[in-house]
C-alpha cells in the first residue's frame, strides 16, 4: 500500500473518530446530573427561574434537534455559541489556545534534546556513578504524579524561597511575555516524560553500542564520537519516537492539571469550567479540538514509523 493511500485511509478513520468522540461527549454531558440552567442558578435554585433560564437557553428544545443543529454547523467550522455567556465557542478556543499551545510546544521542544542527552550520558557510563544517579532520579521522579510535584515545587520555590512566581495569576493570556511563570509548570510537565524517554534512549543506546554493526564500525577504525552519534544513536532513537507521540496525548491530560494548579487560563481550564457549568457547546468544541489533535499527532507518528519501517507499521 502506498503512503498516500495509507494516509487517506487513516484520515477518513480520524474524521469518524472525532465524530464519535463528539457524540459520546454529548451523551456523557447529558448523563451528568443537572443542566446549564441548574448550574447557572447555583445556590438560588428557584424552579420557576430555572425553567425561565431553560427556555431562554433553548434547553427546552428536543435534544436530537440541538444535536443536529450543532453537527450541521461543523462543516462550516461553526461550533455554536456558549449557553451561558452567549459568546461564540470559537472565541473560547482562541482565548485558551495561546497558553496551552505555549506550554505544550515548549514541553515538546525541551523534551527531546534533554531526554536524549540524559539517556546517552547514562548509557555511555553504564553501571557507573553517573548512570546510577540518573537512574535513581528518573525512577524517583517518574513515580511522583504531576499535581504532587507541582505542590512541592510551588511551596519550595514559589512561596518559601520566592525564586519563581507560584502561579500565573495576573500574567493574562500571553505567557511568553512572562517567561518566569512558565518555569515551574514546564518542570512539572517535563519531569515524567523526560524520565520515561531517557530510559528508552539509554536502553536503546546500550543495545546499539553492543550490536554487531557498531562493533564492526569500531573494527574499521571509525572515531568513537562518530560511532556513538552517527551509528549507535539513530538506532537507539526508534523506540523513543513512538513514546514522544504517546507523550503528546498524555500532555493534553497533564496540561489540565497543571493549568488548574498554576492558574493558567488555557484550554484545560476552559474545559473544567465548561463541564462545571454544563455549557455543552463549549465542552463539545473543546472535545473536538482535543480529539483532532490526538488523531493528527498519532497519524504523524504512524506515518513517520511507516517511513522508517514499512513492515512493522501494521498495514497488513
Amino acid at each position, binding site marked *: 500500500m502506498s503512503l498516500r493511500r495509507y494516509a487517506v485511509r487513516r484520515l477518513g478513520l480520524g474524521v469518524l473518530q472525532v465524530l464519535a468522540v463528539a457524540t459520546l461527549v454529548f451523551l456523557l454531558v447529558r448523563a*451528568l*446530573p*443537572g443542566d446549564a440552567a*441548574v*448550574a*447557572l*442558578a*447555583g*445556590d*438560588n*435554585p*428557584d*424552579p*420557576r*427561574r430555572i425553567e*425561565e*433560564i431553560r427556555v*431562554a437557553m433553548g434547553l427546552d428544545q428536543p435534544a436530537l434537534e440541538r444535536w443536529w443543529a450543532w453537527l450541521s454547523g461543523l462543516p462550516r467550522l461553526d461550533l455554536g455559541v*456558549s449557553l*451561558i*455567556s452567549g*459568546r461564540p465557542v470559537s*472565541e*473560547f478556543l482562541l*482565548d*485558551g489556545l495561546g497558553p496551552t499551545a505555549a506550554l505544550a510546544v515548549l514541553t515538546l521542544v525541551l523534551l527531546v534534546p534533554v531526554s536524549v542527552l540524559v539517556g546517552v550520558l547514562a548509557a555511555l557510563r553504564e553501571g557507573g556513578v553517573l548512570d546510577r544517579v540518573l537512574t535513581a532520579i528518573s525512577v524517583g521522579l517518574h513515580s511522583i504524579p504531576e*499535581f*504532587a510535584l*507541582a*505542590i*512541592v515545587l*510551588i*511551596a*519550595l520555590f*514559589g*512561596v*518559601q524561597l*520566592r525564586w519563581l*512566581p*507560584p*502561579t500565573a*495569576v*495576573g500574567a*493574562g*493570556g500571553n505567557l511568553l511575555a512572562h517567561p518566569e511563570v512558565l518555569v515551574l509548570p514546564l518542570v512539572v510537565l517535563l519531569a515524567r516524560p523526560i524520565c520515561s524517554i531517557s530510559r528508552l534512549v539509554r536502553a536503546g543506546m546500550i543495545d546499539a553500542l553492543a550490536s554487531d554493526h557498531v562493533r564492526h564500525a569500531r573494527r574499521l577504525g571509525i572515531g568513537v564520537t562518530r560511532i556513538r552519534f552517527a551509528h549507535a544513536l539513530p538506532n537507539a532513537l526508534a523506540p523513543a519516537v513512538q513514546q514522544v507521540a504517546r507523550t503528546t496525548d498524555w500532555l493534553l491530560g497533564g496540561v489540565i*492539571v497543571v493549568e*488548574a*494548579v498554576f*492558574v493558567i*487560563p488555557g484550554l484545560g*481550564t*476552559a474545559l*473544567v*469550567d*465548561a463541564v*462545571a*457549568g*454544563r*455549557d455543552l457547546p*463549549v465542552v463539545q468544541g473543546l472535545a473536538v479540538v482535543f480529539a483532532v489533535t490526538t488523531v493528527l499527532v498519532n497519524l504523524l507518528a504512524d506515518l513517520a514509523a511507516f517511513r522508517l519501517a514499512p513492515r512493522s507499521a501494521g498495514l497488513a
Partner: protein
Amino acid sequence: MTLTRRGFLGLTAGLSAVTLTGCATDAPAPAAAGPRGGGRLRAAFAGGGAKEVLDPHLANLFVEAARSKAVFDKLADLGQDVSAQPRLAEKWEPSADLLRWRITLREAVFHNGKPVRAQDVLASYARILDPQRTFRAKSSLSLIDLPNSRAVDDRTVEFALTRPFVEFPNALAAFGTYIVPEGTEDFTAPIGSGPFRFESFAPGKSVLLKRNADYWEGAPHLDELEFVIANEESARANALLGGQVEYAHDLTPTTARANTGSDRMTLHRSPNSAVQSFAMKVDRAPFDDPDLREALFLLADRPQLVEAVLGGSGQVGNDLFGKGYEHYADDIPQRGRDLDRAKFLIRKAGAEGLTVRLDTSTAAAGMVEAATVFADQAKGSGLTIEVVTGNKDSYWSDTLKNGSLSSFRSGAMPIETHIAQRLLSDSGTNVTKWARPEFDALYRKAVSTVDETERAAAYREMQGSLHAQGGYLMWGFADWIVGTSPNVGGVATAPANTLDWARFDRVWLG
C-alpha cells in the same frame, strides 16, 4: 480516606504554610498609619472562567458582585447589621399605606459625565423585570408595579407597589439591582456611577479599573484596581504569599490558621457571614415528626462542629438565621447538646434503629466535613446518619426537591429576605418545605405594618416557632476570611455581599 484532585490542590496551601512557619516569627508589619493615595491593587477572586460577564444585572459570582459594586451603584446596600442603608437614594419616604414610595436621588454622575436621573432608575428596573429575561434580581423587585411608577422629576422617583411592604429598601439593596444609564444593552465597556471606571476586560483572566475622581462619595485612594481570577483557594493563597496579588478573597479556615502571625499575610475575618446548617424537610418522613427534628437539634455538638469544621473561625448558631442582624431574636436561649433527651425523643418517634441519609457535596466549603462530624456525633443515639456526597454543580437544585436531610449554607441577607425566599408556602427555594398559613400571615403582618413594636413582635414570634419546630439546624456562623498583604489598609470586615465587603474605594496601599 480518598483524596480528590481538589483535595490534593488544597494541600498546596497547607504545605506552603508549613514551609513558611519557619520564617513567620515576627508580627505582621502594620499597614501604613493613614490612608495613602495611588498604586494598583490586584485582587484575586474565584471566577467562572470565560463565562463571566460585565453586565451587572447578570452578576452571579462573588467576583462579578465585587466588580459590579466597583463600577456601579445600587439605590441602597446592606449595612453592618444587614439592614438597608441609602446609597444612590438619598432618602426614601413611604406613603401611609406603604403602597407608594418616594425616592430622592443623590446628586451623582455616570462615568460619561451624564447625571444619574430618575429615568435611569426606572429603565434599570424595567430591564431587570423584563418578562422575557431571567435576571437574578427579578424576584426581589417583582412587587414593583412598574406601569404605575413614575419619575416625578430628574431626581425623584415614585414607585408603586402591588402590596404594602415596609421592607422595600431591602429590595433596593438586593443582589444585582444596579443602576445603569437608560437604554444600556451593551456592557463591553460598561458605564456606571461607581468609584472606579472601566478600563479593560479579558474574560476568565482579569478586569482593570481606574479611579473615578468624581465619585459622589469621594474619590478612591487607589489609582487602579485589577481583578484577577484564581479558582482554587490554594492558588489565591499562594499568589498572595508569592507577592502576585495584594488581596485574596475567600480563604479557608485552614489557610487562615496556618498563616496566623505570618509577615506576608494579614487576615481579615468578618463574623456572622455564612450560616452553616442542616436542612430537614418537614413535609415528609422521617422529619415530619417534630420530636425527631428536636432530637437532631439536641444531637448537634455545636462547639465541636465550629472547632472541627470552621477551624475556630466562627461562632455557634441557635437554629436561627442572621445572628447579629436586624430583627434577630437573641433572647431565645442557646441550644446545647443533650444526648439523653435526644435518645428519648428518637425512641418516642419510633425511629430507633433508623438510618437517615444526609445529602451533602463540595458545593460550599466545609459542608462535607460538617456532615461527617455530625454523623459521628449521632453515633450511640439510636439513629444512624449516612453521609452521601452528591454532585456539586447541581447540588442546590437536587436537594431542593429530593431527600429528607441535607447540608445547607447561606450568605448574608436581611432576615426578612431569608424568610421570603425560603420559609413561606410559595417561596421559590423552600428547602425545608416549611409551609404554614399562620406563619405566612405573621410574615405579611410584619412587612405591612408601620408600627415598630408590632413588627418586632411578629419577627420574634416567627423566630420562636422556627426555633422550636423548624427544619433548619443552624449550627454555626462562619467568618468570611480575606487575606491581604500587610501593606494594604482600609479593609473593612463585613459579611460578603454587604456594603463594606470588597469595598475597594476605601482601601489603600501603604
